């Protein structure tokens, strides 16, 4: 779950990590008011779950409250990468001496958290050469310690005996605490600003592990998915819209991708990616078919290789949906694996012949779509 910048900063503040003075606002009057409270130049930042906000014009500066109101009005009208701007963050404008970069995320290769830091932060961080980037894998059993933070700061080239160096050590320790206590996938501060003696998180990108949300009851919830993606997700389905004409349903991300690859091989174009996961029952199957049909495909391929999923459950669900709701386009079903005999018998009774091979089924689905 991606969090809005202002939410991330609220988490930072709760852990004592320095953030600029400011607040999120939902209209331009509030922007005026917060700018008045801050009493100096402010920055007004669109709150959307997308990078490259700055380059898209989603960040404005204002010297006076009235300017802030005007800037806010402009931003509220905007759309950034397809996302409407509903919320702004109004903050003091920082005096910037240096922009640093600091993040902690999960490194699949080492299977450990990795802390990434650089004295060359800012918008172009991805272009910074490896030699200016400090990476430190954290041993989760050992945890974060002062010496680790100190060594990272040294490697960044920031002197340890300065107020900024000392502050940075504290920030690194705090950031790791947030990372572990909040089930964080990614916490990124870019830029982390040196402003005089202070070091302040000028941005906050925080992503929480979806699988751990159940135990992060104190965090606010952000819904990033579209309504239909969310409906699919709630049923254990993973659904993405594509621009072809063959509806696809399979169980497992790998085999779903394999199905798309095979369709493409035979010259077909998939209308969607739909991974029904393991063990989808009647409601899930019905919803899956509804989602597929919403793309107006010319044919549909259902590709089930049962492991946790049992073939008889899928067959029963399909037959019931077909009977109750009707399916207006030809459907090719491939059904093997756990309880496959029972499943095929159910389909046969409903007059449907299941395919053995994914290859043949895909070929047929492409043919049907091209008719």
């Amino acid at each position, binding site marked *: 779950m991606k969090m809005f910048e202002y939410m991330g900063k609220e988490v930072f503040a709760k852990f004592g990590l320095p953030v600029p003075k400011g607040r999120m606002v939902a209209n331009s009057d509030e922007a005026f008011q917060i700018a008045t409270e801050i009493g100096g130049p402010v920055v007004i930042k669109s709150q959307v779950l997308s990078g490259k906000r700055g380059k898209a014009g989603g960040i404005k500066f204002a010297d006076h409250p009235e300017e802030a109101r005007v800037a806010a009005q402009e931003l509220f009208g905007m759309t950034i990468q397809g996302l409407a701007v509903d919320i702004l963050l109004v903050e003091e404008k920082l005096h910037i001496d240096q922009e640093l970069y600091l993040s902690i995320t999960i490194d*699949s290769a080492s299977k450990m958290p*990795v802390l990434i830091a650089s004295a060359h932060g800012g918008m172009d961080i991805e272009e910074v050469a490896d030699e200016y980037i400090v990476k430190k894998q954290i041993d*989760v059993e050992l945890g974060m310690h002062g010496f680790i933070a100190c060594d990272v700061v040294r490697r960044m080239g920031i002197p340890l005996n300065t107020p900024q160096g000392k502050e940075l050590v504290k920030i690194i320790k705090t950031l790791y605490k947030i990372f572990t206590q909040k089930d964080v996938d990614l916490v*990124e501060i870019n830029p982390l600003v040196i402003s005089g003696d202070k070091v302040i998180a000028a941005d906050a990108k925080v992503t929480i592990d979806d699988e751990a949300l159940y135990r992060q009851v104190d965090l606010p919830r952000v819904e990033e998915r579209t309504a239909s993606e969310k409906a699919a997700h709630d049923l254990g389905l993973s659904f993405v819209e594509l621009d072809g004409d063959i509806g696809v349903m399979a169980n497992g991300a790998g085999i779903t*991708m394999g199905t798309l690859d095979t369709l493409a091989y035979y010259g077909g174009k998939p209308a969607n990616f739909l991974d029904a996961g393991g063990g989808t029952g009647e409601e899930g199957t019905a919803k899956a078919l509804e989602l597929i049909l919403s793309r107006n495909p010319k044919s549909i391929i259902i590709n089930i290789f049962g492991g946790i999923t049992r073939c008889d459950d899928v067959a029963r669900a399909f037959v019931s949906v077909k009977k109750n709701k009707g399916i207006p386009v030809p459907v090719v079903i491939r059904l093997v694996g756990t309880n496959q005999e029972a499943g095929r018998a159910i389909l046969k009774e409903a007059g449907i012949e299941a395919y053995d091979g994914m290859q043949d089924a895909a070929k047929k689905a492409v043919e049907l779509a091209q008719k």
Partner: protein
Amino acid sequence: MAILIDENTNVLVQGLTGKQGLFHTQQMLAYGSKIVAGTSPGKGGAVVEGIPVYDSVRAACENHQIHASVIFIPAAFVKDAALEALEAGIKVVVVVTEHIPVHDEMAIVAYARRVNATVIGPNTFGIVSSGKCKMGIPPNQFFIPGSVGVVARSGTLTYEIVGNLTAQGIGQTTVVGIGGDRVVGLSFVDVLKMFEQDPETKAVVLIGEIGGKSEEEASLYIKEMTKPVIAYIAGKSAPPGKRMGHAGAIIERGMGTYEGKVKALTEAGARVVELPFEVPEVIKEICR
């Protein structure tokens, strides 16, 4: 021969009395796995499917020699269960459960490393040493003994490919699902090394996916391997996935694409096929 588990492996099932645990225990028994005990806290003393159930892994270990454990337990409790198996000294732990918090996964993997144990998964279909022992959830009928080692990230795609192999009379030594999550115990490289060492394995099939960089890492080792590797990477025509901020870009530095993976594997000497059903033909060609 096989890797990790075989006909002499005494298996423990953690969460034996749950719905999934019970169903798959029956399936594993039908495949011939030597399941000697199960656990279910509070149900110690029961006997299910002829298998004694204990309150804890240590209680099971006091009464049986246990070589490997397979976990069928809800995601929120898997960390505790996996650590329990590892702490009791079990050296192979298979975690089938999906949706486990990644911080829990890191904790499990870190502890396993420390105690020199192998964790397979989480979010894996498991492992099958064909004809000898199955730990996990794959359908029994597709796994027959032979000389091809298979290692994969995703489940159903593996059944698909192994099913094709079996249909053509090509059996497997061991089929290993390393798991689909970002943090898993065994890596491709770990399994490739075992297959390279296993005298019975003559060729290896690697079933990868777009995203991450584990196929690229595997390529570095494939260069050194003496045995042929056939690879299929799913997702050539899949929509692009999510990216993890700048940090993800800094870590991956351009890795993770279909083209990149195919290039790395090909350069390492692996034979990359374009579609799942091409695998058996290529094996026949290579192992002729």
